């Protein structure tokens, strides 16, 4: 069963298409990785799903209804944004209290445990927190809310590697006990590759991949060997990338699967490599962009 659906959604800002015919579905009780480069449209997708932005065209459904100004839908949605801003006068406990008031499944004991885990001082003004502590507050609200649809938009800004791992561990443990639909937008693909069950890859406002993570892992391989042998093997497969050094050729193939072929070396491709290669094949100029 799906909790959210987008069909042919476009979002235009003047002449710029932030989303260009995006169709995707978010399955119930699944952790989704929403991946893509800066400016790919990840944040725009999440803002539209949470009724914060408005699609220019297409269909949007969350829990079977359009989310805009829909209290029934939005009361089941929690959206933690990158660089989430809080009211200047709020202390940490005020932000948590606000979330507690709004989410019926809020777990105060879990929130308290997370506060201790991330060493966030509950009585400190939010504007006095470090960047990492501020991100931790967002993570705590997102996890302890136990909203049926929880969206994290790059929530790790300023969190060090240990704190990020803590987030992944707590998310996975709580998800196992309280399954829900989680959308995790991130650039740190290797870090979350074991966490996410479904991958949606966006690039330039279009969906490049929408598949189960397990399927992707099994089907994509890097094949290395003599150029001629690799060329013969690769024929008919979806080639994502190729590198040639002298007579040796290495190609990344989708749908080939891991196998034994005399003279050829097969290596599994990490999710990050798959995302990078797929995005590169989309022939978008490689430059740091701004998230839309």
């Amino acid at each position, binding site marked *: 069963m799906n909790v959210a659906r987008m069909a042919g959604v476009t979002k235009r800002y003047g002449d710029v298409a932030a989303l260009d015919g995006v169709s995707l579905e978010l399955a119930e009780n699944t952790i989704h990785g929403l991946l893509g480069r800066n400016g790919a449209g990840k944040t725009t997708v999440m803002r539209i799903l949470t*009724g*914060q*932005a408005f699609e220019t065209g297409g269909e949007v459904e969350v829990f079977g209804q359009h989310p805009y*100004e829909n209290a029934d839908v939005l*009361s089941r949605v929690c*959206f933690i944004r990158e660089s989430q801003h*809080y009211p200047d006068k709020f202390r940490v406990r005020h932000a948590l209290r606000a979330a507690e008031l*709004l989410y019926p499944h809020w777990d105060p004991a879990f929130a308290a445990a997370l506060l201790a885990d991330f060493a966030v001082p509950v009585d400190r003004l939010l504007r006095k927190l470090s960047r990492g502590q501020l991100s931790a507050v967002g993570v705590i609200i997102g996890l302890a809310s136990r909203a049926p649809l929880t969206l994290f938009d790059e929530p790790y800004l300023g969190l060090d590697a240990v704190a990020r791992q803590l987030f992944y561990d707590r998310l996975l443990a709580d998800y196992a006990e309280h399954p829900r639909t989680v959308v995790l937008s991130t650039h740190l693909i290797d870090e979350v590759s074991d966490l996410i069950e479904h991958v949606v890859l966006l690039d330039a406002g279009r969906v490049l991949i929408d598949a189960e993570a397990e399927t992707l892992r099994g089907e994509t391989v890097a094949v290395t060997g003599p150029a001629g042998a690799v060329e013969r093997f690769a024929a008919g497969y979806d080639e994502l990338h190729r590198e040639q050094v002298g007579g040796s050729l290495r190609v990344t193939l989708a749908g080939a699967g891991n196998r034994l072929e005399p003279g050829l070396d097969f290596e599994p491709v990490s999710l990050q490599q798959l995302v990078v290669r797929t995005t590169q094949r989309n022939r978008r100029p490689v430059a740091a962009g701004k998230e839309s």
Partner: protein
Amino acid sequence: MPRVLDVVRIQLVHWPALLGYPLLALVAMPPLGWGIDVSNGETARGAHEIYLLPMLLGAIASAHLQTMTQVFPFTLGLGVTRRAFAAATALVVLGQALLLGLGLVAFDIVERLTGGWGRETRIFGLDVLGHGNPLALWLVYSGPLVAVSAIGVLAGVVFQRWRHTGIYLAIFGSVALLVAMGALAKTQNWWPSIGSFLGGQPSLTLFTAYPLVFALALGGAAWLVLRRATA
């Protein structure tokens, strides 16, 4: 409705900004008035008025502006609808105005009982507000508070939606409108009629009914802007 009340409670999470500081301003007015009298050497000059009430109005407007620019985007991410937030804001504005209005009536009574703080000073019971019964006075005090709050709310949502450009255009547009209306009144020689019309209105109409109509108009405009505002 429970959702709206939850949002009211969130807006009041930091209650000092909405209630504490305005009440503090209220309590500070008599000593401030005394200070002004001393600095002006007016302590023995008979009955006089000191206009400190705008200080309270300014504090209220800025508090609601911050609610719209800071609390609104925060709660939007927590699944609150704009409609629920707007309804909660209306309740908070009304409740705050009535509470502070009650405080103003209390201070007005004290002011009268003490003979104008012992020196015939009028800080609260200004002549222009009339001298009705406490209930009428409560409404007379509360009306302008609601109107000023509505200005703060509208300014906040304009900023939230269009940022500084919106605020600049709103200020420029408002000033231009006022100047145009003033010029029209001047060229048509309407000022005497306007003056006599306003002068003939009872305090309750002038300070309660008109401000509420004004607040409703601004509130409606704020809602239209808020409908498409994002975090």
